[in-house]
């Protein structure tokens, strides 16, 4: 069974640009989560999508947005990039929502903002 996949692996952008990160969940999983992990820090929860709807959002500005498609894959968009947006962005999926389910993580997209 294929795991969670993310693309691209690395992304280099300049300040003010927009970045789009993609995630494909494990087949059968309907929930997708996005996390930001800045260097040396823990994971910060960004967004949770389930069945195409945004279910919860972390403490991030509105320039962080995303969506979930009918096939449950997801996109994370970061507008007006700032230097501090440089981080590893991890996507995870689960069969159901947070309360009972293990999340399976992808390898991440490393975003560098110059």
């Amino acid at each position: 069974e294929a795991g969670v996949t993310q693309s691209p692996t690395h992304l280099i952008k300049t300040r003010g640009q927009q970045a789009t990160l993609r995630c494909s969940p494990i087949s059968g999983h309907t929930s997708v989560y996005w996390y930001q992990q800045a260097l040396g820090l823990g994971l910060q929860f960004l967004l949770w999508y389930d069945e195409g709807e945004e279910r919860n959002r972390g403490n991030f500005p509105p320039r962080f947005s995303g969506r979930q498609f009918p096939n449950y894959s997801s996109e994370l968009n970061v507008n007006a990039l700032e230097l501090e947006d440089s981080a590893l962005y991890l996507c995870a999926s689960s069969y159901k929502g947070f309360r009972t389910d293990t999340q399976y993580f992808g390898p991440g997209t490393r975003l560098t903002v110059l």
Partner: protein
Amino acid sequence: SQQGEEDPQALSIQEGENATMNCSYKTSINNLQWYRQNSGRGLVHLILIRSNEREKHSGRLRVTLDTSKKSSSLLITASRAADTASYFCATDRNDMRFGAGTRLTVKP
């Protein structure tokens, strides 16, 4: 804001020794999970313990949960160099809150 906080921040031991990591959290939980992350890659789920459980084992891993103290511990017995990684605890409410992790180094 972070919910789980791991302690210590870093731990260095010799192969064969046991490693103990602790996690404290702030609010009531449904379950607590431990994850491992190798070299800035994706996280791998290790074990889930529910709020009505006190101890759980999986291979060389032993997790305890004390809901009265809002704390959990992860014990890795007979550590191996391959256990070198960062370990995170995560708690659930309507989202998953991860701590900053414990960086474990196992020296051969």
